[in-house]
């Protein structure tokens, strides 16, 4: 079953880029999008390490780099094992465009304003990615090892979502 409704996902993920896609995604496109999402969060983390002086933010960013690198390394190993090439697609492109716009906004900030913007973005990003992986990617993929990898990755991403929520609460951004 390769049909995957992306309109809702893209409406949220690509709000900054305005990108939309209605085409169903296949396994290779799903793999590409998941890998891309992880890579983009690593880029956010590197930006946080360059800008933030808050220990909680920096610790979170280090964790994102460490964990998403591990997940993407596992994905790379699976791709090699299966001898396939992930396919670029509208969702991956929308994620890249949306992240570029978000990074541009983040780079205009510093101090507590940056920390709160980064933390809130991480929470929202993980909420959206986790919903997409759980409700769209995992049900749609047809290759068992990819489904297993996504299920394992989701465990990690859900831990990140909780961690991000704690970071947001700890920063007291609403005060």
């Amino acid at each position: 079953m390769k049909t995957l409704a992306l309109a809702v996902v893209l409406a949220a993920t690509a709000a900054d880029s305005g990108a939309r896609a209605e085409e169903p995604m296949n396994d290779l496109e799903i793999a590409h999008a998941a890998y891309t999402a992880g890579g983009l969060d690593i880029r956010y983390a590197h930006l946080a390490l360059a800008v933030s002086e808050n220990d909680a933010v920096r610790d979170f960013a280090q964790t994102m780099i460490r964990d998403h690198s591990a997940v993407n390394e596992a994905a790379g190993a699976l791709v090699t094992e299966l001898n396939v090439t992930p396919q670029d697609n509208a969702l991956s492109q929308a994620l890249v465009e949306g992240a570029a716009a978000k990074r541009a906004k983040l780079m205009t900030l510093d101090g507590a304003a940056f920390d709160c913007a980064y933390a809130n973005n991480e929470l929202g990003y993980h909420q959206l990615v986790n919903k997409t992986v759980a409700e769209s990617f995992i049900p749609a993929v047809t290759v068992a090892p990819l489904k297993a990898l996504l299920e394992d990755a989701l465990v990690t991403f859900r831990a990140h979502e909780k961690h991000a929520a704690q970071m947001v609460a700890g920063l007291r951004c609403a005060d």
Partner: protein
Amino acid sequence: MAGAPRTVRAHDRAHEVEVRIAHFAFDPTWIEILVGDSVIWINNDLAPHTATAKDAAWDTGSIDRGDTRRITFEAPGEHPYFCAFHPHMKGSILVRSRSEG
């Protein structure tokens, strides 16, 4: 009583206890061992983890997926620990002396 079989407890010699790391949790969360026993952490998660003493007395360092790390406990006491990468992950080890065990 000469010739009577001696009761041999499981802890008459050093043992190894496994703690599995999965779904961002230590399992079992709490263990009780005797002095000289070892704990082996096995990481089944994609993400790397550590087992790090709360008082910094010991640390497994990073444990990648599928890897194991062993710590041998030579002194009695309570050892609360956590994952340095994901501090919400917590566990505890109670090390008893062999005389009280």
